[in-house]
């Protein structure tokens, strides 16, 4: 019998206690990226220690998604290095220069990093169970029995045990996003990236997804979360970083950044994002 102290991801919980260490798991150093004519990232630095939850905020178009996608090598930066667990992502050092990895080497690196998308991106032609067990079986070479067992465990934890046989199209947005989180966790990632996980949801469905993420934070999972939910960021984040126009304009302990922002752009952004009564409650 497993312990119930960590509702999600109990396997890892025994290895990684909720205590945060000083060792950075993610280190983005001086990341530059252009897309077409636009300079999208302008020398971004960001770190996340093991077990740390970093919330990334900022107006749309600031470059948050691009930064997240550079961390798991869906996109590659033009300049600057991302390290995850001490390993450079997307390139290898050869003869003193950083050379881009091949697509199949990249996929090996991506397998250790979970990502949750704004639009869920479940595979519509596969049942919920197949969505979850496909990658562990194919990439981790797990047997169907092992993968299925973990899938049911995860489905129970996201509260959708009865949906294993359903197809994504017949689920609500909130349910789909919880399945997407279970699918990412099934690969037992070291790091989870969330790109606006509740932005495509009706307001009454956001809480069921945010609750799952909060529980995950309690297990000591390292997470970088792009979100517009300020109250959620306050609850869950250790560190908050605010991006604007391709740069991080403010970063620090979440309480400080979200309650007493120093940069005027942060203040404007927070004022727009928060309903009045929440601002007074700070």
């Amino acid at each position, binding site marked *: 019998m497993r312990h119930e102290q960590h509702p999600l991801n109990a396997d890892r919980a025994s290895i990684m206690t909720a205590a945060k260490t000083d060792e950075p798991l993610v280190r983005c150093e001086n990341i530059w990226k252009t897309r077409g004519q636009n300079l999208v990232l302008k020398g971004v630095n960001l770190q996340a220690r093991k077990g740390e939850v970093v919330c990334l905020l900022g107006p749309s178009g600031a470059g948050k998604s691009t930064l997240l996608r550079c961390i798991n090598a869906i996109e590659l930066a033009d300049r600057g290095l991302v390290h995850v667990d001490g390993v450079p992502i997307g390139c290898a050092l050869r003869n003193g220069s950083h050379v881009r990895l091949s697509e199949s080497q990249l996929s090996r690196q991506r397998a250790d990093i979970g990502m949750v998308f704004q639009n869920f991106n*479940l*595979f519509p*032609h596969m049942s919920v169970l197949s969505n979850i067990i496909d990658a562990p079986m*194919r990439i981790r070479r797990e047997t169907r029995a092992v993968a299925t067992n973990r899938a049911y465990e995860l489905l129970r934890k996201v509260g959708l045990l009865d949906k294993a046989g359903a197809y994504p199209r017949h689920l609500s*947005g*909130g349910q789909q996003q919880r399945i997407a989180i279970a699918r990412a966790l099934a*690969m037992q990632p070291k790091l989870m990236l969330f790109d606006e996980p509740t932005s495509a949801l009706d307001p009454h469905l956001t809480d069921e997804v945010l609750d799952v993420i909060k529980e995950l934070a309690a297990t000591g999972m390292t997470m970088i979360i792009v979100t517009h939910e300020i109250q959620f960021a306050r609850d869950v984040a250790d560190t908050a970083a605010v991006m604007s126009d391709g740069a991080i304009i403010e970063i620090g302990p979440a309480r400080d950044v979200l309650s007493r922002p120093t940069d005027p752009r942060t203040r404007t952004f927070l004022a727009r994002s928060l309903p009045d009564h929440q601002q007074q409650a700070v």
Partner: protein
Amino acid sequence: MNAHPAMDTTGTSRDMSKAPEIIHPPRLGRWIGVILVGTVMAWIVYQALTNPGFQWDVVGRYLLDVGVLKGVAMTLQLTAIVMIVGLLIGIVVAVMRMSGDPLLIFCAHAFVWFFRGTPVLVQLVFWYNLAALFPAIEIGIPFGGPKFFEIPATVAISSFTAALLGLGLNEGAYMAEIIRAGLMSVDNGQSEASKALGHKPWHTFWVVVLPQAMKAIVPPTGNQVIGMLKYTSIASVVALYELMHSVELIYSRNFEIVPLLIVAALWYLFLVSILSVIQYFIEKHYSKGWQGQDDRGA
């Protein structure tokens, strides 16, 4: 206030008989249509039964003739192989076209441009007469380098090879466009999610993107197969013994042209009907996950 006895306080009527029923007006146009279609069909049946020119006894005699059956077998075989070749070429060319690599995109464009732009009849005859252009087929270094392997083209290019090359390359060009449209219909987020899970590129293509593209690829491909089944009759110009050529050979001897053309037509109709049924089941298979009403929440 409950002014109406049939209405309760929540605003819901309980008495269905009080609600006026909506009646459809009589469809005069449809009746005229039925009479017209019925007349035309009666005339066709009457002609088929009474016009001696159809010579149904001759049709019956040749319908299961060994020569005709051999032609049917060749038609089926050629259709199947041409479609498989076309499908494989189509996938490769479509992937090249979408690869983002300028050289591959150029090659894909050039292929589609050439093989879609020249008549199949010309290509068939060209391949069949390849020996005139290249007396020998050789593998080696071009521009006068050493040769590793050589056979005379007249031996290498049979009627079947010529038909396969002519029809297959042309079909590949059309299939490339059909497959490309299918691949583009799949949301970008799908391959992104697959990549993010750590899947290799070929897995992302075969297991995630292509099965979803199939929903858009299967109906026009079914159309292509049915078209190809009949289009193989063009291979009779290079003397390939398929269905059309087999009846041609018979009526050139006995001059029973109309009944033998009917034999061919009946066979084509029969085969196309079977293909249509197969297409229905394949379409059903690839719409998995899309069935049922679209009633999801947010």
